[in-house]
């Protein structure tokens, strides 16, 4: 029905206009009003969320999807670049979820950043990030996606370095940029390959023309891009370091939206990868390795934000495993459900940190469930959802992924790593809960702790409702494109639940052991986990040192030494000097010797001539 398309297009354009307008009003009007951010930006995001629900409901009810191409941007011979927006299941579902989470985070940030003099700029940065993310998600061609991709990277840099006077924050922002840039090399390579071989950056044309080509090279580029953006193993250290930024930044960018951009890219371009076993295996192994490694690192962290950051990285590894299983719908479902509970975990952690006067170490927390019951309840719900507790949001995606993994005939090693990581997820979640709000307080008695502020409880409650209901709603509303395996033996069906409970039980036993009078001698694997696998310690020193040493050698030895000493003036000098020395040495004033030699030679020649 054409009217449905018009409604869909119009409502989406209205959503975009509502989002973009505060950026322009801030340029036109001086945003000196201290509550400008609340009035304009938070309200804009809230309205944009409600407006974006209309396309969502239409899509769920009728299955309408469409692509809007409205501007012919540039043309190079036969290569066209247009601005085109693709409203398919992925973008129509993700945009309302991103806006809902952003609304909750902005309302929370209006309380948390109230004393910041640059709060308007902060909200504007978050809004620009959101616009870049929506551009990325709704892009129908790789050029527009790349614009969104770079946009989210730049805003991540600006927001991590928000407190720019702190040296660690600047280091972390640079780290994020550099690691993302390494991944962007892969994306740019893929873009170039597609432009030259597929002659288009439009997704539909790419999917058709790529069927007969060997796609190993561009797909590896895309996987590298996802590795950089989604903090997979190898390019992962920037994500825990990014916790230097304010917590709304961590909650929005580094848990719910930006870090899933890499996975989203792979889901979007799945038709290029689904018949490529090399690519799928790479994703599977990389994801399994990432999820286990980051879970092991999370087990011994003492900073609450770092625990949640490693938890994010682990879930991103799980999403990559799902891509490797050729289940892009499940990966997308996990992206959506993960956004809710991870954002909620970050907001809860911020309330706790604020209550304890910027104390982030879980060794100095405890006994908080009497003091801030709403926050700790939300933390519990979020952790349970993260563990995959039945019928919360995480269950519908995580359990489905583990079932698909169990029923597949792919790599058993990847399966083992993922199951172990699932068990350890329960372990570190319990460890966090045990030290944060069980037992007795270990913090000094400070000024009264208060969470009875609407700006705190309303966002937490909204995200809690999302955590409880989102998985159910999404699973009931939309049929998966690939039929899941429905019948399997009970031990396979219950694997995820059993190993989660096992992890919980063992973690509880070990946690209860920590306050018993027993001297503790740590082993090497404790140090391995605490030092994050020694990966940053080695990589952040080895590569910069190697490259700088090489560049110093090239600059000083190769260029300077070659041009000045080996081929240039000094060589000429030394050659001339040696010639002159030899020549003058030959003529040392031995006249009698020279004369006798001369006459001897002369006599020999005359005699030879004569005879």
């Amino acid at each position, binding site marked *: 029905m054409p009217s449905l398309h018009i409604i869909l297009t119009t409502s989406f354009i209205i959503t975009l206009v509502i989002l973009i307008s505060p950026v322009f009003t801030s340029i036109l009007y001086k945003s000196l009003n201290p509550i400008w951010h609340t009035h304009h930006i938070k309200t804009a995001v809230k309205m944009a969320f409600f407006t974006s629900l209309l396309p969502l409901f239409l899509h769920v009810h009728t299955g309408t999807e469409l692509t809007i191409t409205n501007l012919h941007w540039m043309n190079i011979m036969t290569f066209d670049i247009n601005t085109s927006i693709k409203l398919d299941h992925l973008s129509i579902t993700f945009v309302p979820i991103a806006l809902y989470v952003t609304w909750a985070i902005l309302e929370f940030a209006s309380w948390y950043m109230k*004393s910041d*003099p640059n709060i308007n700029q902060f909200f504007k940065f978050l809004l620009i990030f959101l616009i870049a993310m929506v551009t990325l998600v709704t892009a129908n061609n790789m050029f527009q996606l790349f614009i969104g991709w770079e946009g989210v990277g730049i805003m991540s840099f600006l927001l991590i370095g928000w*407190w*720019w*006077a*702190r*040296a*660690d*924050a600047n280091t972390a922002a640079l780290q994020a940029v550099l690691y993302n840039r390494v991944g962007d090399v892969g994306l740019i390579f893929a873009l170039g390959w597609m432009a030259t071989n597929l002659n288009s950056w439009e997704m539909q044309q790419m999917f058709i023309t790529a069927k007969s080509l060997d796609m190993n090279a561009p797909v590896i580029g895309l996987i590298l891009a996802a590795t950089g953006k989604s903090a997979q193993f190898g390019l992962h250290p920037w994500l825990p370091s990014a916790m230097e930024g304010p917590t709304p930044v961590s909650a929005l960018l580094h848990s719910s939206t930006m870090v899933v951009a890499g996975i989203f890219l792979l889901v979007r371009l799945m038709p290029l990868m689904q018949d490529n076993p090399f690519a799928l295996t790479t994703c599977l192994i990389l994801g399994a390795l990432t999820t286990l490694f980051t879970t092991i690192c999370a087990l*011994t*962290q*003492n*900073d609450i934000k770092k625990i949640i950051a490693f938890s994010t990285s682990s879930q991103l590894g799980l999403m990559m495993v799902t891509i490797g299983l050729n289940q892009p719908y499940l990966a997308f479902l996990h992206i959506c459900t993960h956004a809710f509970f991870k954002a909620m975990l970050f907001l809860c952690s911020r309330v706790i940190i604020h209550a304890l*006067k*910027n*104390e*982030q*170490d879980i*060794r*100095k927390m405890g006994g908080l469930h009497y003091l801030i019951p709403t926050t700790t309840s939300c933390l519990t719900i979020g952790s349970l959802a993260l563990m995959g507790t039945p019928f919360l949001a995480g269950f519908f995606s995580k359990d489905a992924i583990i079932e698909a993994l169990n029923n597949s005939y792919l790599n058993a090693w990847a399966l083992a790593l993922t199951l172990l990581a699932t068990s350890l997820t329960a372990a570190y979640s319990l460890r966090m809960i045990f*030290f944060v709000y069980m*037992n007795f307080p*270990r913090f000094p008695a400070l000024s009264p702790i208060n969470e009875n502020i609407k700006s705190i409880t309303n966002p937490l409650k909204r995200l809690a409702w999302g955590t409880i209901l989102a998985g159910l709603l999404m699973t009931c509303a939309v049929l998966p494109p690939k039929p899941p395996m429905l019948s399997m033996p009970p031990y396979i069906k219950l694997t995820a639940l059993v190993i989660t409970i096992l992890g919980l039980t063992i973690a509880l036993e070990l946690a209860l052991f*920590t*306050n*018993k*009078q027993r*001297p*503790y001698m740590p082993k090497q694997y404790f*140090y391995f986990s*605490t*030092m994050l696998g020694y990966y940053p310690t080695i990589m952040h020193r080895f590569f910069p040192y190697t490259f700088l040493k090489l560049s110093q050698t090239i600059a000083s030895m190769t260029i300077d030494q070659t041009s000045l000493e080996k081929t240039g003036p000094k060589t000429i000098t030394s050659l001339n000097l040696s010639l002159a020395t030899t020549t003058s040495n030959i003529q040392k004033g031995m006249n009698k010797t020279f004369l006798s030699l001369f006459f001897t030679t002369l006599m020999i020649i005359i005699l030879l001539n004569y005879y």
Partner: protein
Amino acid sequence: MAAAYLTHQQKVLRLYKKSLRHLESWCIFRDKYRFYACLLRARFDENKNEKDMVKATKLLKAGEEEFWAKQHPQPYIFPDSPGGTSYERYNCYKVPEWVLDHWHPSEKAMYPDYFSKREQWKKLREKSWDKEVAQLQAETPAGGPRTEALPPARKEGDLPPLWWQYVTRPKERPA
């Protein structure tokens, strides 16, 4: 009087304090920490009356090596201490006071009392600057200052040296 070298007492006390802090990082619960802290104190107290400096230095060295082997890889650091999570976080809001001189007259007109007083203080600062510098030059030893502490005013009617930097220092936690 602070000097360039640490005394033996200072070294032992520093070792004791950092050992306690790392013990606190290992023993998370206070009752367990208190138990092992008492044991540590007893170990230090055993040798506190040692008069032979060679033996005392060897004990200190052994203690430092034991500390190095058993230290916590992520010791607890207070948030506002160097290495902590909110160290230097608010320095970006600490604006130096000379920025006030660059305010537009219309902005200065919003705070007439402060800016009129400020002009008087600036004149006072100009008058006392030479005396402050003279006092510091007279009192600083030849090898350079031993501490960061500034001396008080010595003469009647003088202001303490570098009082302007102290009076106009930014707040610890700028609002």
